[in-house]
C-alpha cells in the first residue's frame, strides 16, 4: 500500500524534557491509524509536528512523497483536543473565516458549508453566536470546519469527547464515510472500544517512545495466548473443577447462559491443540460454550504499558 504520511526518527526536546524519542510511523493511504498512549506520552507533540505547529529537533516528516512544507497545511484537517471557537463570532462567519484560512475561496466555502449544514441539520445556526450554542453543538461546527476543505489527511484528537452517544455515533459514521471517500485518518483517543471498531492500524506511544506498531489484526494475533472461555455441564461440578485446576491455569468467567454449568476461562499450553482440548472437555461432560478469548485493544494497551 502507498504511504500518505511517513514520520522518520523524529525527536523533540523541550528544555530538559524529551517529548519524543526517535519516533517513526507510517500511515497508509485510505486507512484509519490509531495513535494511542497514556497521558503525556507524546501524542500531541507528534500531532503538532505533523501540523507544523512545532518543528522537530531531528528527523523528518514526509507527506504524500514530499518533505513537509508550509503549503501542506491545506491538505491537512486538524481537530485538536484543546478545541474551541471564537465565542462572540457568528457560526457562519466563523466557519467561512476558518475555511478561507485553509485556502478555500469564499464562494467555495459557502457552498460546501451549506452542504454540510444541511447534512447535519444545523442550517438554522448560521447566524447564532458560538456562545449561544451548547458544547456539543459547537463541537459539530468544529467538526465541519475541520473537514470542509476536503483534506487528504485528517487528524482527530479525541473526536468524541463532549458528544452524547447519539452524536458520537453520527460523527463516527461521518468519519467512516470520509475514509470511504478517500481520506486518510489519524485518530488519537483513549476510548478503546472506538479503536477496536474503527482502526486498521495502531501505534502505541509510551514515555516518548513508540513501543508498539502494526495492523490491529496482526497485533491481536501476536497477543493471543491460547485462552478459551468454556461452559461445561458435568455430573459433579466440584470434581471436574478440581480436575481442570490441576491440568490448566483457570479463572472464573461469566457469560449469559440458560444452563446450570461450569463457566471458566482456561489457558491451554501451547503444546495442546484446540481440537485436543475440545475432545478432553467433551470427555468430561457436555460442552455448551467454547470461544477463543481474543485480547481487546484495551487489554493490549494495559498489558504493553505495564510491561514497559
Amino acid at each position, binding site marked *: 500500500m502507498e504511504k500518505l504520511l511517513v514520520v522518520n526518527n523524529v525527536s523533540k526536546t523541550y528544555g530538559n524534557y524529551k517529548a519524543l524519542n526517535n519516533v517513526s510511523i507510517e500511515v497508509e493511504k485510505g486507512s484509519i491509524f490509531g495513535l494511542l498512549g497514556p497521558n503525556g506520552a507524546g501524542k500531541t507533540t507528534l500531532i503538532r509536528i505533523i501540523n507544523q505547529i512545532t518543528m522537530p529537533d531531528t528527523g523528518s516528516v514526509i507527506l504524500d512523497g514530499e518533505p513537509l512544507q508550509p503549503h501542506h497545511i491545506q491538505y491537512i484537517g486538524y481537530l485538536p483536543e484543546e478545541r474551541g*471557537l471564537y465565542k462572540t463570532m457568528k457560526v457562519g462567519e466563523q466557519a467561512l473565516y476558518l475555511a478561507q484560512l485553509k485556502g478555500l475561496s469564499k464562494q467555495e466555502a459557502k457552498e460546501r458549508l451549506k452542504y454540510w449544514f444541511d447534512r447535519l441539520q444545523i442550517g438554522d445556526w448560521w447566524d447564532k453566536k458560538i456562545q449561544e450554542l451548547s458544547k456539543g453543538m459547537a463541537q459539530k461546527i468544529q467538526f465541519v470546519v475541520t473537514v470542509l476543505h476536503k483534506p487528504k489527511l485528517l487528524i482527530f484528537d479525541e473526536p468524541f469527547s463532549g458528544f452524547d452517544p447519539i452524536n458520537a455515533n453520527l460523527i463516527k459514521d461521518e468519519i467512516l464515510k470520509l475514509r470511504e471517500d478517500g481520506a486518510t485518518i489519524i485518530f488519537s483517543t483513549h476510548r478503546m472500544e472506538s479503536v477496536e471498531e474503527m482502526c486498521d492500524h495502531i501505534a502505541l506511544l509510551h514515555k516518548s517512545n513508540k513501543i508498539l506498531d502494526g495492523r490491529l489484526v496482526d497485533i491481536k494475533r501476536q497477543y493471543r495466548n491460547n485462552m478459551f472461555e468454556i461452559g461445561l455441564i458435568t455430573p459433579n461440578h466440584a470434581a471436574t473443577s478440581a480436575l481442570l485446576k490441576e491440568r490448566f491455569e483457570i479463572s472464573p468467567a461469566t457469560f449469559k447462559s440458560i444452563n446450570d454449568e461450569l463457566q471458566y476461562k482456561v489457558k491451554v499450553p501451547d503444546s495442546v491443540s484446540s481440537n485436543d482440548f475440545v475432545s478432553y472437555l467433551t470427555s468430561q461432560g457436555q460442552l455448551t460454550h467454547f470461544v477463543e478469548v481474543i485480547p481487546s485493544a484495551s487489554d493490549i494497551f494495559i498489558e504493553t504499558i505495564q510491561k514497559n
Partner: protein
Amino acid sequence: MNHLPLIIKREYLTKVRNKSFIIMTFLSPFIFVGIFALVAYLSSINNDTIRKISVLDESGLFADEFNSTPHIQYKILNDFSLEEAKKEAETQEIYGLLYIPKTESLDSLSQGITFYSEDSPSLSLMGDINDILENKVNTMKLKEAGIDSETIKSLHINISANQETFKGKETSKLGSGLKLVFGGAAGYLLFMFIIIYGNMIMRSVIEEKTSRVIEVIISSVKPRLLLLGKIFGTTLAGITQFLVWVVLILVLMTVVTSIFGIDPAAASPSQQVLENSVDGGTQQIMHDIMLEINNLPIVNLIVMFILFFVGGYLLYASLYASVGAAVDSETDTQQFMMPILMPLILAVYVGFFTVIDNPHGTVSQIFSYIPFTSPVVMLMRIPFGVPIWQQIISVVILFATFGGMVWFAAKIYRVGILMYGKKPTYKEIYKWLKY
C-alpha cells in the same frame, strides 16, 4: 497564500462590532464634552455671584481704596463698633467683614487687620484684599520717606527681553509654550494610545487562548502572521475610534458652545491672565500664535509624528501581545506589565520634566535614542528643533528594535499560546526563546 488581509479584517471587524467598543466610541465624546460644559457652566455661575464685604476701617486710611467690582461689593461702615459690625454681617448675608484697627504707626498696622467670615474665604479673594492693603501701605511708606507717587511711577520700567535665535528668527515665550503644547500633546497622545490599544491586543490574545481556538488557527497560519494581523487589525480599530472621537468632539463642542453660549475660554482661567499680561488684546495674541505656528517645523513635525507614533506603538503592541501569550488570564498579567509600563512612564517623565527644562541637554538626547522612550521624548523635542540626522538615526533604531521585538514576541507567542494552566516565570519565558 497570503492570509494577512483576512486576519486583519477579522480582527478589525470583531473589535469594531464589539458592543462595549461601540458604546465607548460614541459615549466618550459625550462624557468629555459634558464634563467640559459642566466645568464651563460652573465657573460661569461662580463668576456671577456677587460677594458683599463690609469694611470697618477705624484707621481711616483705606476709605477710598476699596472700589466695588462686578463680583465684589464693598460696603464701608462708619460709626460701628466691631461687635455691631459682626452682628450686622451675620444677619444680613454679608460674605465677610474686614476689620482694620486704629493704629499709631504704619509698621504696627499689619498686626491687627482681621477678616471675619462664616467659612474660610477663598484664596483669590484674600489675595485681592491683601494686595489692596499692601499697595496703599507701601505708597504711604514711600511718601513718609519723601518720595511722591508720581516719581515712583516714572521710575518703574517694565522689561520683557526679546528672544531671537542666532539665525535671526524671532522667538518668544509664547513660542516656547506653543512648542510645549505641540510636543506634549503628541507625546501624551502616543502614551494614551499605547496603553488603551496595547491592552486591547493583549486581551484579544488571551481570549484566543481561553477559548482554545488558538490551536485551530495556528494549524492554518504561522503565529507571526497571526501576531501581525492582530496588531494591525486592532490598530486600525483604534484609529477608527480616535477619528470618531475627534469628529464627534469637534461637532459636539461647536453645538454646546453655540447653544449655551459658553465661551470656551471661560473654562481656562489662564486665558484671563494672558489677556491681562499682554497689551493689545486677543487679536495681537492670535497674530503671534499664527506667527509661531509658522515658525514651527510643520512638515518635519507631521512626518516624524507619524513615523514615531507608528513605530512606538508597534513596538509596545508586540510587547503587549507577548504578555498576552505568556499568561492564561488577565489577572496574571500584572507581573509582566511592570517592565512594559516602566519605560513608558519614564519616557513621559523625561518628556515633561527634562525636555521642558532643557530640550537639547544630554539626558534628553540620550532618551531620544533609546527606542522604548524615543517616540515620546523625541516627539517632544522636535518642535524645539532637532537636526534631521538625529531624527533619522532615532527612527532607524526604533524600527530596527521593532523588527527584533516582533521576532522575540513571536517566539514567546509561538510557545506561550499553547501553554495552559500555569503562570510562567521569567526564567521559563527565557527558556521558551530557545525552543
